[in-house]
């Protein structure tokens, strides 16, 4: 059997977490090193997967099953049809890479955590395992297992280590996502039973399950919207701003950067891929929600006083763009979405990590009170500008590459009975200019302008922080200048889904 790359990626953090729990609480240095090492191993292996995935073979394959590589399948509970089935394709490999990048950057950014560090990093490792597993799972039950595994540690991490109204925010976030996932779970069970194959295996259901059109139309909405709650689909996004503001930095980074992507990814895999008839029916209406999300959250972000709230809403808006790409159901739009998921993750992680750096020093997130921070932290400011420009779709950076594909995909999604798609493209584009306005405003107010005397002696950022933001900013530049590094991969992933709807 080939080396189980994906399982190692998934379980290394869990093993590290257990090791961490066995250490005495005061050995903080060792704890952090173990966490960083686990993240680093996952990062190296995900990079390996990213670059060795055979794009040519995937392009020639005829259906989804042919495009899954690094596959591992072990029967778990055969009588119930549960198996440990994981694998990588063009959609989830970039997301695995994104997770490991943000995990590694997040560990570096959390290096200074002192209060109950052992438990913090242990929970972080469990969270990581849940996320990796959620992306790689190809069995419905396994998927839900990892999904829930990712949700619970967040509740504890926000409630114990968070800030502004942490208990309230933690409860709100967890309840919302949980209710959403339970509704979706009911839908998944419905799929299991209706498919009549006695298995939870997604690939088998995809290939052989005979789910009739009516069934699909009924159950698409619970499944897609249930998981869409985690993807902050408007109007179910309300847990997100409060949750992110309250969460400790690394949790915000992982949540905005990765968990929302996981919600979207799972909604895609189980909703769109397994219930295409339902998708065809409902997505042209869901597109309205996504466009509202984009424009509304940009406008709300504009009016925020709290630095972190701006980016809480910003990430809702960017997920709106991801979901807009989903609604196109064509090759161009879905390819753009695959890239946008990756980019949105990197951008959000940069934003939240820098918010954390500013807050740790200034102990305030009130925008009017800040200013001039470029003198204290020049490298994070540069990373912030790169992420900010990318988020407004500045050509030359990655955001433009993803957004242009999605917008063109929206144009192509036009059909006589869904004539509104081009209007959606135009309205969504207006979100770009609002994004530009609030990003420039925040950038100026926090980083440029006058440095207040009370902040004049603040320490700069550590080497760990610099490495973290640089690591996250590099993909934004590289993809912007050389999109072919990710585009063919995303395209093979998108092909599996677009082919259900008639290709490009």
């Amino acid at each position, binding site marked *: 059997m080939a080396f189980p790359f994906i399982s190692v990626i998934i379980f290394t953090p869990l093993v590290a977490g257990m090791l961490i729990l066995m250490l005495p609480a005061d050995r903080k240095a060792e704890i952090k090193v173990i966490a960083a090492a686990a993240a680093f191993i996952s990062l190296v292996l995900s990079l390996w997967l990213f670059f060795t995935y055979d794009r040519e073979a995937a392009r020639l394959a005829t259906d989804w099953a042919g495009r899954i590589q690094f596959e591992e399948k072990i029967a778990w509970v055969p009588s119930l049809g549960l198996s440990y089935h994981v694998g990588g394709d063009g959609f989830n490999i970039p997301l695995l890479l994104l997770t490991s990048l943000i995990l590694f950057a997040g560990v570096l950014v959390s290096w200074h955590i002192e209060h109950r560090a052992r438990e913090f990093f242990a929970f972080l490792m469990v969270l990581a395992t849940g996320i990796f597993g959620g992306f790689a799972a190809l069995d419905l039950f396994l998927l839900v297992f990892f999904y829930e595994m990712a949700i619970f540690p967040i509740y504890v991490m926000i409630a114990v280590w968070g800030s502004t109204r942490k208990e309230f925010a933690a409860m709100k976030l967890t309840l919302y996502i949980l209710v959403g996932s339970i509704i979706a779970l009911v839908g998944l069970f419905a799929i299991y039973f209706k498919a009549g194959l006695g298995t939870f295996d997604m690939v088998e259901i995809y290939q052989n399950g005979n789910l009739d059109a009516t069934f699909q139309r009924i159950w698409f909405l619970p499944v897609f919207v249930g998981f869409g709650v985690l993807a902050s689909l408007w109007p179910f996004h309300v847990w997100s701003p409060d949750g992110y503001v309250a969460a400790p930095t690394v949790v915000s980074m992982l949540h905005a950067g990765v968990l929302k992507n996981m919600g979207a990814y799972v909604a895609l895999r189980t909703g769109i891929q397994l219930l295409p008839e339902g998708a065809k029916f409902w997505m042209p209406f869901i597109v309205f929600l996504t466009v509202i999300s984009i424009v509304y959250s940009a406008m709300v972000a504009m009016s925020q006083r709290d630095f972190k709230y701006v980016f809480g809403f910003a990430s809702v808006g960017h997920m709106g763009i991801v979901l807009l790409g989903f609604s196109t159901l064509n090759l*161009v739009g879905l*390819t753009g979405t695959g890239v946008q998921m990756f980019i949105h993750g990197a951008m959000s992680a940069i934003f939240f990590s820098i918010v954390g750096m500013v807050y740790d020093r200034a102990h305030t997130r009130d925008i009017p009170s800040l200013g001039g921070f470029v003198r204290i932290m020049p490298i994070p400011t540069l990373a912030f500008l790169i992420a900010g*420009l990318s988020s407004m779709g*500045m*050509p*030359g950076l990655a955001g*433009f*590459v993803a957004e*242009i*594909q999605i*917008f*063109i995909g929206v*144009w*192509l999604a*036009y059909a*006589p009975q869904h*004539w509104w798609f*081009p209007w959606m*493209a*135009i309205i969504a*584009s*207006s979100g*770009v*200019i609002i994004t*530009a*306005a609030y990003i*420039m*405003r925040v950038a*100026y107010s926090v980083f*440029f*302008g006058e440095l207040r005397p009370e902040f004049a002696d603040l320490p700069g950022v550590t080497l760990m922080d610099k490495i973290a933001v640089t690591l996250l900013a590099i993909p934004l530049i590289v993809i912007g200048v050389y*999109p*072919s590094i990710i*585009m063919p991969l995303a*395209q093979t992933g998108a092909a599996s889904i677009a082919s259900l709807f008639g290709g490009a």
Partner: protein
Amino acid sequence: MDFILSHLLSLIVFTPLLGAIVVMLLPGHQKRLIRWVAFGLSLIPFILSVVLWVNFVPGEPGYQFVEQADWLPALGVRYHVGVDGLSLTLILLTTLLTPLGVLISFSIEEHVRSFFALFLFLETGILGYFVALDLIIFFIFWEIGLVPMYFLINQWGSANRRYASFKFFIYTMAGSLAMLLAIQVIWIASRSIVPTGTFDIPLLMQMRPFTGEQVLPFLSQELARTIAFWAFVIAFAIKVPIWPVHTWLPDAHTEAPTAGSMILAGVLLKMGAYGFLRVVIPFFPAEAARFALALAILALLSILMGAYAAYGQTDFKRLVAYSSINHMGIVILGIAVAATTLGTKQYAEHGVMAYNGAVLQMFNHGLTSAALFALVGMVYERTHTRDLSAYGGLWVVMPAYGGILIYSAMANLGLPGLGSFVSEFLVVRGAWPVYTLITALAMIGLVMTAAFTLMAVQRVLHGPLNPRWKELREITWREGLAMAPLMIGLLAIGVWPRWILDVINAAAQFL
């Protein structure tokens, strides 16, 4: 040498970026080192563009020095670049003004490294825009030009810089959004002829994509053409700027640091006019012809309003800013004439004349506005005021400066023997039979240009010497060196314009 010639355009476009990176790597406190290294690096694109000029063959149709490479195959976007007479002229202008701007900026003391790095980065954006032959690449470089300019104004500008930079950024970005929409619509329409769609400019020009069958049922080719045309017009009109979407310019030019204003007025404004000539007229000849009269009227308003507003200014720099609106109005008048006469037999040669005039005016105005802004900057550095009424009698203290200011002012108002006369004459001569009334009124504008220019000169140089300025430094050799190429260029064009008109005319013939 062969490698250089075959990749000349990419080298010209990207050497400033490399230069910017080199500058960033220099030690931050070694200001002299940074300044001279930046100057040296900025000369490289200039030398390369002279090589380009010499090796360019004016009579040949189509684009020269073409380079192509795949960039985003999924959408059919290719890195496709090339030059013709029009873009060559503007490349030369850009690569000439950048080193001069660097020289003028030696007085910048704060964050010197970042300043010059941003300045060089800006040059890459502008040069890439002028050589792009693929709409997405075109758009990318257009946008890339925005960010460094924002920071240059925002960080190194004067008192009202925050407002001015924000206004500049958002205003022009709104135009960019219109352009993005237009590009998307063109792509959709192009699918009627090329199934996977194309963004390639030469191909789209040949294809006339809006004559095929309609691709999307609600989007007739007629509608697509109209939307794309107006969206492009709005985007470029904001950049030129044409009255009434010019209001970002006075603030941006006034608040920018001197070199920023030189590049802003000297080159960035031309990006808008270039867009009209490269995209709007070739892609939409019928709509352009229909819109030409309105464009000519707006041009006239720019000329008159710009001159009138300039006359009323008390701030020296703001006066020069309004003068830019005035001169770009003449460019747009020439473009309007070219749009009207395209394809007609009767006034074809007038159209060509007006086109030549417009492009030459772009080049001339680049030189004169750079010169004037540089001179404003010099006097500001010495007196720390831009208030015209605070000056007076500076001729006595700085005679060499005064001489250069008078020379540049004469160039600005179109004195025969200096460049602007040739371009303004060509535009007027070309426009006269086509838009007689408008041209007559525009000539009143030219008189007003003379009025405000001379008014400014009088306030600065003549009159009783204000005692505050008794000890002012004369113009330094460095500043003089920066002014020299501009003055020589203006004289050369004024006296023997053939060397540049041959190149421009080639492009005009093939429109």
